């Protein structure tokens, strides 16, 4: 799959703390070279939710650490979010074409076909391979592994990976438990072929699943098991459901174990991690996992207060926000860890590259609630 313009040159600066090939050999690797996040302009505050649900701003903040989330407008779909984030990520990377596009999502535009080909078409990625990855909130890490695999296998030289979810489409607005947690958004990265010793090289993946926990995080109807026939499917089965206590326990256990597996594979010690960027499930899970790993709270990157749980978008949104705030600097060692429905979990490591500031930065965590939206969405990096 040829590209219109040549790939960026690999960064040849030595970076001994980055993920390494066994024995210190330089091997072909996927390297992060573009990053962006985008959330729809409409902000839904805790106070707004409190007007129609039996809850309060204090209750939501205490139990989840979430202060607001963003919802799409009627008619907006996951591909619309993905296009916004994808376009900005391509600008960040300074390229117009990729060989492949991967969209990680739990809320595709349609059951069939995948969302990625439409996103590729709308981004002008003519002829690029395009497919979806479905791993719920672990989708971005699974997508990273898939995208990196395309590169290391020599199938692609550049890949655009977008994590995008429209949870407002599947969460029952009257479900007090879940409606306070989830938001809509998209985050995207561009990966290019490089080598394992350079900053931005992504590696040491740990991925896993346990289908015995299928029902802990579920939308029961709409698939081949329970088809969506009007009048036969209950309201509960049409919507997202989660068994909170069991999920909380699994999330902490699995994320901690997966993070340790990646660190062990790379021979990194926990205190060598500069930034832990977990799936932004809720603040309490982030704190509990960081505590379990022995990481001080300040090394845990979080923007869940501003955007809620955005599913597959959460890690790239948090990364884009942290990069925009210059919390993450070139050379910093970064640990990504996620957990989601399936059950699924995954982790990987990278040392932070120098990303060209080609797009305006607007961090999500410092955006006042009353801030005017810019160009259809206030949060790009």
């Amino acid at each position, binding site marked *: 799959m040829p590209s219109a313009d040549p790939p960026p040159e690999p960064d040849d600066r030595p970076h001994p703390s980055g993920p390494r090939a066994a024995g210190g050999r330089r091997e072909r690797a996927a390297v992060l070279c573009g990053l962006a996040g985008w959330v729809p302009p409409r902000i839904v505050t805790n106070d707004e939710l409190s007007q129609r649900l039996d809850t309060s701003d204090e209750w939501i903040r205490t139990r989840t650490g979430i202060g607001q989330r963003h919802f799409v407008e009627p008619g907006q779909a996951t591909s619309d979010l993905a296009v916004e984030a994808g376009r900005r990520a391509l600008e960040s990377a300074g390229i117009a074409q990729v060989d492949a596009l991967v969209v990680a999502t739990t809320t595709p535009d349609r059951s069939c076909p995948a969302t990625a080909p439409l996103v590729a078409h709308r981004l002008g990625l003519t002829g690029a391979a395009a497919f979806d990855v479905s791993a719920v909130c672990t989708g971005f890490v699974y997508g990273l592994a898939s995208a990196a695999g395309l590169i290391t296998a020599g199938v692609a030289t550049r890949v655009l990976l977008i994590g995008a979810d429209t949870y407002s489409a599947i969460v029952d607005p009257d479900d007090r438990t879940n409606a306070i947690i989830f938001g809509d958004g998209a985050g995207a990265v561009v990966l290019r072929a490089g080598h394992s010793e350079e900053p931005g090289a992504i590696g040491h993946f740990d991925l896993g699943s346990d289908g015995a926990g299928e029902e802990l995080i579920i939308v029961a109807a709409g698939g081949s098991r329970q088809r969506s026939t009007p009048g036969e499917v209950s309201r509960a089965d049409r919507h997202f459901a989660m068994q909170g*206590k069991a999920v909380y*326990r699994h999330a*902490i256990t699995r994320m901690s174990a997966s993070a340790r597996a990646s660190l062990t594979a790379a021979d990194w010690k926990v205190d060598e991690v500069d930034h832990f960027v977990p799936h932004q499930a809720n603040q309490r899970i982030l704190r*509990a996992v960081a505590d379990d790993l022995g990481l001080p709270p300040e090394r845990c990157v979080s923007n869940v207060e501003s955007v809620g749980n955005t599913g597959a978008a959460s890690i790239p949104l948090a990364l884009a926000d942290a990069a925009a705030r210059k919390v993450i600097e070139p050379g910093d060692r970064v640990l990504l860890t996620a957990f989601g429905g399936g059950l699924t979990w995954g982790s990987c490591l990278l040392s932070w590259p120098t990303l060209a500031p080609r797009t305006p930065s607007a961090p999500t965590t410092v955006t006042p609630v009353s801030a005017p939206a810019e160009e259809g969405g206030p949060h790009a990096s």
Partner: protein
Amino acid sequence: MSATYDQLIALLTKLHEAPPGDITPDVTYAELDVDSLTLVEISMHVERELGVSIEDNELHPDLSLGATAKLIDERLAS
């Protein structure tokens, strides 16, 4: 109370802020405003630090701290 009770109080106070005077063997988690996710964390810490497995539905809001310590001691003895 037992050493187990003291260990339980130590991990409870690490996970949940409560006035020290309110923490007695007879007080329940609900009375201390301990929510369901904190109960899960208590259960996970008990399992990790004391080697006793407690199901999520066993550690319920109406259970007292003293009854929890008794439950753990019974598991340790069995």
